[in-house]
């Protein structure tokens, strides 16, 4: 069992996912995989979707609900490290299969969804690292 700071782990894993996704976007936009269908406005438009008042209006009550439900343990994640590794590998393998399938069916669309794929890979692979870095050692001892 590994006890870790959930917020820090999630934020940094998300950043890692975004960095990996952005690296992919850099290659995609610069035409390494054929003609790019969009430019860097893709990222700004995507961010706008997340911070749009309508999106926040629905998300804030949900976050409050989750916070109230977990109460004091909101920031503390208790996870079995071996199970986490297995789960993450399953997610990454399924994502890879889905992307390969999409590539075989419609490669143009696959190159677009590949941004999400690299985000998922970046998130789930770095999550394990951040979990270990932000584990609460004193909690385990007690």
């Amino acid at each position, binding site marked *: 069992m590994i006890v870790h700071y959930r917020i820090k782990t999630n934020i940094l894993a998300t950043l890692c996912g975004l960095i990996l996704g952005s690296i992919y976007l850099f290659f995609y936009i610069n035409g390494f995989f054929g003609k790019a269908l969009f430019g860097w406005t893709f990222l700004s*438009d*995507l961010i706008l*979707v997340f911070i749009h008042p*309508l999106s926040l209006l629905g998300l804030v009550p949900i976050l409050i609900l989750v916070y109230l439900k977990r109460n004091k343990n909101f920031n503390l994640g208790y996870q079995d490290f071996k199970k986490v590794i297995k789960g993450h590998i399953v997610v990454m393998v399924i994502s890879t299969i889905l992307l390969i399938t999409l590539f075989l069916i*419609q490669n*143009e*669309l696959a190159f677009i969804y590949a941004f999400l794929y690299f985000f*998922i890979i970046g*998130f789930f692979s770095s999550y394990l690292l951040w979990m270990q870095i932000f584990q609460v050692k004193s909690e385990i001892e007690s």
Partner: protein
Amino acid sequence: MLKIKRIAIILILLTVTVHILPELYFFEVKATSQSENKLTQDEAIKEFMSIIKNTVQYSEFESKINEVEVMEYSSTNVGDRITISFTTDRENQRIIFVGSETYEILYIGLITDGEDVLEVFDLLQSKKISYSYTSLSSISPDPNCSTYYCTSYQSNYVWNPQPACSIIIGQGCYGFALLPGYGWVAYAVCRAGVFIGCNFYTNKKCTTGFWNNVCPM
């Protein structure tokens, strides 16, 4: 095993939210803007289809016809035209029917995409014309004709920002945020997926075709 099942269910839900719902949104928008006009066009196509089915040429090819490939109603400078194209059991072969707005059959053609040439057999006039692919683009249309018949299309994706679609359909992603453990990332992936699904639409681009003696097709 339970974990894999749970992941599979989440991924299926993600796929549905990300891909199918935006498609429905576009269908809805398209349907609302063209509903009145489309209804009459659909009726005309349906009527023309029933007429086609009574033709000798259709009966002759009925056993070989696989499926409807194109159903098109277009307005041209010499009146409205209805085009219905069927694929046949022979690869690269199709049969097309062109009719007027009064459901008069103007043209029935059997088109075969050969290796080097495009063979067009006019079933009404029993006339066969072969076009080499290189010459197709240089064939000049009849001065009275203004339309070009496309025999093959290529689908490509076009970037078309639809902020309203991303935000409205994306509301369905809130459920993922409630998931224990990785709710946030499932929510983010769902939102981003909806964003991608909403901002791209497929556009058919004509790659091969020909000008026909029927004016217009």
